Structures are given as structure tokens and as C-alpha cells.
């Protein structure tokens, strides 16, 4: 066996192990979600069993869970809309050569993206209580901007930086105003980047727990909270918890499969290359 072949085999072995390690917990939870309580905790674990759909039926009929699911959907939609509405013009402006302190601004954006979410919950709690934004999806989407907006600006700036500046100049010579150049040249060229950024934003919002826990109570509870709710005071409904968890990752999964090409294409386009 040649050296190159051995190296290939080794890298495949590592990939298979890594793939299995990351998919195993999901398979396990799928297993629990399809088993009776007795089967789920049988020792040794039962690999062959008769699947039951009771847990899914229960979760999908649960008004609290459905509400959480829809709230997360709206929060993701609203969060992305806000982020792009502000982030795109901001990134476009930051991409211009004559912005004083551009490097500092970009560094701050990245830093604020990395701050732990919970940092914002306590000061904003009082503010939201007073302003009526507490326990609203709009309020949530607003707070999500603390990480969504800097990330969006950072990503879009990187994608815009990949557009040759000569195109900007050529459009200027043709009489286009800045906003026309943004709309007709930069946005179409950065479209895969927008898609990739939106997907990453959505994943982050969808999985967010800390802020939702602190700033919602009932009306605006998100899907992560709805999943956690199956962990009752006295007992944990493992079957329903697992079925809810699996249901909550479904949209992201379907989305990821459908948009796989855009994600990879967008990511390898510039920003995170």
C-alpha cells in the first residue's frame, strides 16, 4: 500500500469516526422518541424495538410547543430582517476606503458578536418590563441584534470587499448613485453571501436559550424553551422531550439539506474562506 493511499484511508477513518460521534446522540434521541418509556430505559439498550408515534402525536398536538415553534420562526424572520435592513447599508459604508477607524470598528463588531448573550439579559430585563417589550417576539428579535447585527455587518462587509472596487468606479462613471450601486451591483454579486449569512443567523437564533429564558414568560416563549418545558418539576417526560427535540431540529435540517450548496458556496466565497 502506498503512502498516499494509507493517508487517504486514515483520513477517511477519522472522518467516519467524527461523523459517527456527532450523529450518535441524535440517533439515540430519535431512538428514545420512538420507544415506550420501558423500552427506552431497558438495560442493555434495545436496538430492535417496535416504534411508536405516541410521543410525536403528543408533542404535535401540544399548543405550547406549537406556539414556541412559531415564535422561533417569527423571531428568526424578524431578526434577519432587522439585521439585513441595517447591516447591509452599514457594511456597504464600512467597505468604502475612506472610513476613519475602520479596522477598530470591525474589531469591535467581532468582539461584540462574541460576548455571552446572558450579559444583556439583566440590564435589558428592566428596560423591557418598563417599555412593554418583555415577553414579545419583537423584543426578542431586537435583543438578538446584539449578536445578529455585528455578525451580519461583519459577513456582508467581507462579501462586499470581494467585489472589485473598479466595478464601483465604473458604475460611478455611468452616473449611478451609491444606493443604486449597492442595489444593482453589490447585492446581486453578494447574493450567495446573503444566503449563507441568513442561514447562520437563523441557526443561532433558533438555538438561542439564555435570552429567551430571561426575557420571555409565556406569550413569546421560543422552541428551545418549549422543548425544555417537558422537563417537569417532578418527572421528566423523556419520550416527549426527545420527540420535541427532534421536531425542533427538523426545520434546520431540511433547510440545511436544501441550501447546502448555497451555504458551502457562500462560505467559501470570501468571508470565512
Amino acid at each position, binding site marked *: 500500500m502506498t503512502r498516499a493511499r494509507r493517508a487517504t484511508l486514515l483520513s477517511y477513518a477519522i472522518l467516519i469516526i467524527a461523523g459517527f460521534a456527532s450523529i450518535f446522540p441524535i440517533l439515540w434521541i430519535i431512538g428514545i422518541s420512538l420507544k415506550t418509556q420501558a423500552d427506552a430505559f431497558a438495560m442493555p439498550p434495545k436496538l430492535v424495538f417496535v416504534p411508536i408515534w405516541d410521543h410525536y402525536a403528543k408533542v404535535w398536538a401540544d399548543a405550547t410547543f406549537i406556539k414556541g415553534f412559531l415564535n422561533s420562526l417569527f423571531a428568526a424572520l424578524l431578526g434577519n430582517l432587522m439585521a439585513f435592513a441595517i447591516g447591509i447599508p452599514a457594511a456597504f459604508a464600512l467597505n468604502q476606503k475612506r472610513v476613519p477607524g475602520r479596522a477598530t470598528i470591525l474589531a469591535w463588531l467581532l468582539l461584540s458578536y462574541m460576548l455571552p448573550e446572558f450579559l444583556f439579559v439583566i440590564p435589558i430585563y428592566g428596560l423591557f418590563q418598563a417599555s412593554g417589550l418583555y415577553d414579545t417576539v419583537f423584543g426578542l428579535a431586537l435583543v438578538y441584534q446584539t449578536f445578529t447585527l455585528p455578525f451580519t455587518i461583519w459577513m456582508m462587509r467581507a462579501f462586499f470587499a470581494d467585489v*472589485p472596487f*473598479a*466595478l464601483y*468606479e*465604473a*458604475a*460611478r*462613471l*455611468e*452616473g*449611478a448613485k451609491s444606493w*443604486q450601486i449597492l442595489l*444593482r*451591483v453589490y447585492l*446581486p*454579486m453578494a447574493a450567495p453571501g446573503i444566503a449563507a449569512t441568513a442561514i447562520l443567523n437563523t441557526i443561532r437564533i433558533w438555538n438561542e436559550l439564555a435570552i429567551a429564558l430571561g426575557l420571555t414568560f409565556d406569550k413569546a416563549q421560543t422552541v428551545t424553551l418549549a422543548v425544555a418545558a417537558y422537563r417537569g418539576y417532578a418527572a421528566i417526560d423523556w419520550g416527549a422531550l426527545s420527540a420535541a427535540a427532534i421536531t425542533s431540529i427538523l426545520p434546520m435540517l431540511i433547510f440545511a439539506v436544501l441550501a447546502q450548496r448555497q451555504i458551502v458556496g457562500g462560505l467559501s466565497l470570501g468571508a470565512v474562506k
Partner: protein
Amino acid sequence: MAAVEFQNVGIRFGEVPVVRDLSLIVEDGEFVVLVGPSGCGKSTILRSIAGLAAINEGDMRIGGERMNDADPAARDIAMVFQSYALFPNMTVAQNLGFGLKIRGEARAGIARKVAEVAAVVGLSDHLHKRPGALSGGQRQRVALARAILRRPGVFLFDEPLSNLDAEFRTAMRAEIVRFHRNQGASMVYVTHDQTEAMTMGDKIAVLAPLAAGHKANLMQYGTPDEVYNRPANLFVARFIGTPRMNVMTLPVDGGTVRFGSQTLALPPAAAHLGKVVLGQRPEHLRLAATGSESGLAGSVEHIENLGHEMILTLATDLGPLILREARSAKVPSLGQQVRLVLDPDHVHLFDPVSEQRIE
């Protein structure tokens, strides 16, 4: 009326001066080539005409009107970029119609004008394609067509041929010159290729970088013949012409200089100097007849045989000299001892301190 006029123009990037004291007039309908080594400010000067580089001092006029601070779109110019700067997300037709659309022309009018100009440059069959699906030469034509559509008074070109291969470059060179003749518009053309400059321009502006210690960028402004036959200074003498002009510093003795056994009388302006820089182009340097003792001794170090002519590099006491001769003569062999003779009618003299031409 002059198409473009620079009057004592200075351009700085931050604190760094890139263009200083530039005065130059492009007459109406003239084809002017800006040529010089990398970093001499050619692109910056061109971009200042377009409004893409800010002018810090002096005046720049287009069609007699001061345009230092005018909006780029209002300058009666069109520019062809080195990278062509075509919009990759648009078809050729959309690229061509972009400016018209921005200016709010009706759709039917845009389509008609685009079709017209596409026919002129031979792109009619490619209107629906994106730039990515075109060859380099076709992209170049799209860029040209976009410029033509604007019907500008002045066309600006920034090294438009540098992305093409050598063979195609020659063809496009002829095409642009023909295009200039047909259009009758003024053109300012940037290149660092002095062959391009010599063959295309009505006039050539030879520029030098300020970073190399020059007081101003413009070294000489004249027709190709003037620049080639009467270089105003050592910089131009060395820059224009391939192979380069032979240049040697010789001591002046009693109003004459010696080139081996050959004696040359200097004009009065040079006779009083201690030393003088003498230049002669390779095609004017000759090999003396075999057995002759005239001129300077040298040995053949390198031969470039181009078929119709040969280019010899000769090692001499005055340093390596280049000689160019038609192939009708006998080709000397490597290492052979020869004697070189200057053609006194084609000697260029320069002041060794100021580096300016002496007549």
C-alpha cells in the same frame, strides 16, 4: 479648444506626493499616450481626469471648463479599465445599457442603442451572454462598447491590452488606433509598454516616479519621433527604445571625447564640461571592417539572432554595449574580437549632473 488641460497639477495620497507640477495639454481629437515605469503616476493622472482621484493643486480642464471637483458622471469622459470592470451579474446587453438605464432612458431606446453599438464592435451575437462566458478580447470589446455608448469627448484607457496575449494585443492595438480615427474623439491612453506608446500615440508623455527623486513627473511631451530622436533627458533616452540606448560617461578633453581611437568634437555647449554623458542607440553603433584599428575594441559576449537582424552584446572598456545590425552582414562568433565605431551624426549628449540634453 483643448480637450484636456492640466495646469500645475499636484496630487497627493495622504502626505505622499504622487503627481507634482504637471502641465500638459491634450488637443481636441488627439491620441495621447501616458507612458512610464510602474508607480510613476500614470493611472493616477488618468483617474484624476475621470474624477476618481482628487486633485490637490492646480487646475484640470475638460473642454475648457475647470473640472477639478465635478461629478465623474458630468465630465464628458468614458473610461476603459484595465480589468474591464464589467458587471459579472449582468448580460452583455445589460452591461452596455447600465448607464442609460441609470439615466432613466426608455427601454426601447436603450435596446436600440445597445444593438447599434454591439454591431459596431462585433458583439451582436453575444448580447445575451454574461462576461464570464466571453474571451478576453470579447470582454475588451464590451468595455470599449460601453465607453462608445456614452459618446464622450474624451476616452480614457488604463492599460486596456495588458490582459491579452501578445498576438491579440497587436491586433487590438491596430483596432483601437482605427477606432480613434473613426471616432475623432480625444483619447488618453495609459501604458507602461513603450512599444505601445510609440506605435499608437499622436503624442507621448513620458513620466517618471517622484519617489525616484524627480522634481516633476513629466519628463518629455512630444510626438513619438521627437521623443525617440531627441530625448530631452537621460530618463527618456533610457526608457524609450528597445534595446535600450547605450549610455557612457566620458571625460572631455580639449572640447572632444574619445571612443577608443575615435575622436568626437563636442558642440560648444558641452565643450567646457569636465565630463559628458554620451548616448547612442544600438542601431547606430557599427562594427568596423575587419582589420581596421578605428573605434573601440570589444568582444562578442552574447548574440541574439532574430532572423532579419541580430542584437549583439559586446564587452568593452566602457562597459557592455548593445549593437543592432541587419542580418545582411556576416554574424560574428561568440568571443570574437571586434571594433566598434560611433555614428557621429546620431550621438546624444547629456549633462552628467542635470541629466538634460545638450544640443
